[in-house]
């Protein structure tokens, strides 16, 4: 019995030790599904790329795999990619909807690799789940550019909006608007997503620098406007002296603002979002919302497309990389005073 117990404990320890080997950004996943290796160790040095010229008659196919193609952000990226490639009729853009599911994205990635696309632009629903598909694509000579949500394997490029810093900036500006004191709430998205978790962490750690600001409540509204209205109603019910609320995305901030309006508190609360959707910017302009962290998502999509075309037109291969190169988009703190500087053609 004791031997069995010992064997069980040892097996459990082995399992725990193995599960500790989570894939880091600087780790290269074996596309065949074998062991992972540190990026620097597995560098072959020989390019696996077939060079094409995207600006001539070569037929080019770029796949865009959205996390959820119905969201404004995913649509703005697609629009940016299309705009970037619009001048060349030989470049075709294939749109694929991940339906907010990593499993669907994995299946789509398999199809895309088989169809011989020349580059893939993807927002990974789950970086770990997608790591092997991304590695398989890169191994097949298809450069992969991730958007905002990274893959846990070395790949051609990551184009991202700031996350931790966006939370930090929102916290500082919100504290300034509140005069450094007051009770606030947080309306969260779905826990476990790298970007939004970082955003919330940035916000919480920065707001902790203001001792007279207290976070009294935090509830999830699953990124949805309608659910955010219900959550905001209960915040206002529980905390009659609530001074403000920080929402992890703009859709929820818009919902919170509508809920505040219906209680006769329109414009009286400090309501912040993050993303910079055009509806949120309009609400900031008319005083329903206090601010958001704006990123030009059209430009972000366009940047990803530029990198894809660069990769397609060169022999540059992910083999030479030791970690994924990053492009970080410029964040703009949009408040009633600054929102006018965001031109109509930059509002997505």
């Amino acid at each position, binding site marked *: 019995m004791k031997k069995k117990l010992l064997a069980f404990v040892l097996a459990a320890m082995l399992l725990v030790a193995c599960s500790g080997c989570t894939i880091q950004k600087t780790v290269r996943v074996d596309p065949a599904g074998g062991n992972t290796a540190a990026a620097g160790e597995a560098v072959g040095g020989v390019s696996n790329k077939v060079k094409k010229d995207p600006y001539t008659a070569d037929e080019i196919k770029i796949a865009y795999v959205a996390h959820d193609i*119905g969201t*404004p952000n995913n649509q703005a990226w697609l629009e940016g990619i299309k705009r970037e490639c619009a001048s060349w009729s030989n470049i075709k853009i294939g749109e694929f909807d991940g339906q907010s599911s990593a499993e669907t994205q994995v299946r789509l990635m398999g199809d895309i690799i088989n169809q011989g696309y020349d580059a893939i632009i993807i927002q990974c629903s789950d970086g770990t789940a997608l790591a092997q598909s991304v590695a398989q694509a890169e191994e097949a000579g298809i450069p992969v550019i991730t958007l905002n949500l990274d893959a846990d394997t070395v790949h051609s490029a990551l184009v991202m909006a700031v996350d931790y810093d966006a939370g930090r900036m929102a916290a500082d500006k919100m504290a300034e608007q509140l005069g450094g004191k007051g009770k606030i709430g947080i309306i969260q998205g779905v826990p476990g997503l790298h970007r939004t978790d970082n955003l919330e962490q940035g916000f919480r750690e920065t707001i902790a620098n203001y001792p007279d600001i207290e976070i009294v409540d935090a509830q999830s509204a699953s990124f949805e406007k309608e659910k955010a209205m*219900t959550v905001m109603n*209960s915040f206002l019910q529980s905390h009659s002296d609530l001074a403000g609320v920080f929402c992890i995305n703009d859709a929820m901030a818009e919902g919170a603002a509508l809920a505040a309006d219906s209680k006769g508190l329109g414009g009286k609360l400090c309501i912040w979002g993050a993303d910079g959707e055009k509806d949120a910017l309009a609400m900031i302009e008319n005083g329903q919302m206090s601010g958001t962290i704006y990123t030009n998502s059209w430009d972000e999509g366009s940047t990803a497309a530029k990198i894809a075309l660069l990769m397609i037109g060169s022999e540059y291969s992910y083999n030479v990389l030791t970690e994924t190169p990053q492009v970080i988009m410029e964040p703009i703190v949009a408040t009633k005073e600054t929102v006018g500087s965001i031109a109509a053609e930059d509002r997505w």
Partner: protein
Amino acid sequence: MKNFNLTKYSKPLILLVFIIVLTILRPSTFLTVSNFANVLWSISVIGIMVCGTIFVFLIGGIDLSIATLCGFCAVVTVKTITYFHNSTGGVFAGILAALAVGAAAGCLHGIVITRFHIPAFLVTFATQSIFLGLSMIVTSNKIISCTEPAAFTAIGAKKILGFPLPIYLMILIAALAWYVLRKTEFGRYIYAVGGNATAAEISGINVRRSTVLCYVFSGLTTALGGVILASMTQQAMASTGSGYTNDVITAGVIGGVSLLGGEGTVLGAMFGAVLMGLLNNGLNLMSVPSTHAGLVKGLVIIIAVGFDALQHTDQARKKVKKIVKKEA
């Protein structure tokens, strides 16, 4: 006292226990008019939709397309309003267009199910994709904002005597559904068809027509849900209403509506919706983190529904005992 029948009062009793527990836990915030307005407002769309869908459940059918049809009707409403340059007349046109789409969808479901004898599950499973696809095409997969006119935004937000308009609409629809099911011949036909369709057919009930009408009712309430949802959020997109199929079916089943047909009441379905609303409200007021909310919600639903089911089983057992005694 000897004849006190707990079965009859088990559902109100469960709600009362809920209210007492939440009042003790949150004395200053829970038992207020504004909080009850919050709870009822949050379940108003589910409440309206379940009042129509219950007709489908009662004949032993199912409608899996509720969520995407709701989204499509929201899109139709907003698109029509913007087509008429956000005028008040456009709001009426938008509402009528949505109701027409809902009724047409219900009619289509009913005809395909009865004419071609295809299971309702398959038909509505297929149409849910069709409605989602239509919404995506019409909106180009973008959000269509509609913050004007006031006549439109008032549908979801206008308050009368401290309660938002959707609550009154929910009560009105529930009263209508209750009347049709309890006081009309058609209502009795529905229970008969759900209980045994062949027997109902033999006894002269037009099963085919009743089935089509039930799906039309479901389509109409779903469309109204879509209109209210679009007004509440002042926008529409393809994903509007996502998750509502589960919510509506759950509210019905919690309220004792049998998915096999022939069993269930409007009051029961409304009880299910209110219980879900109270539960969500309680979790929010007690600041239960989202990581724990699912677990707590599931456990409370099992306890509440288990208690209700136990009362019914006890009652049935007592009836059997009585009959056996009589026979003896």
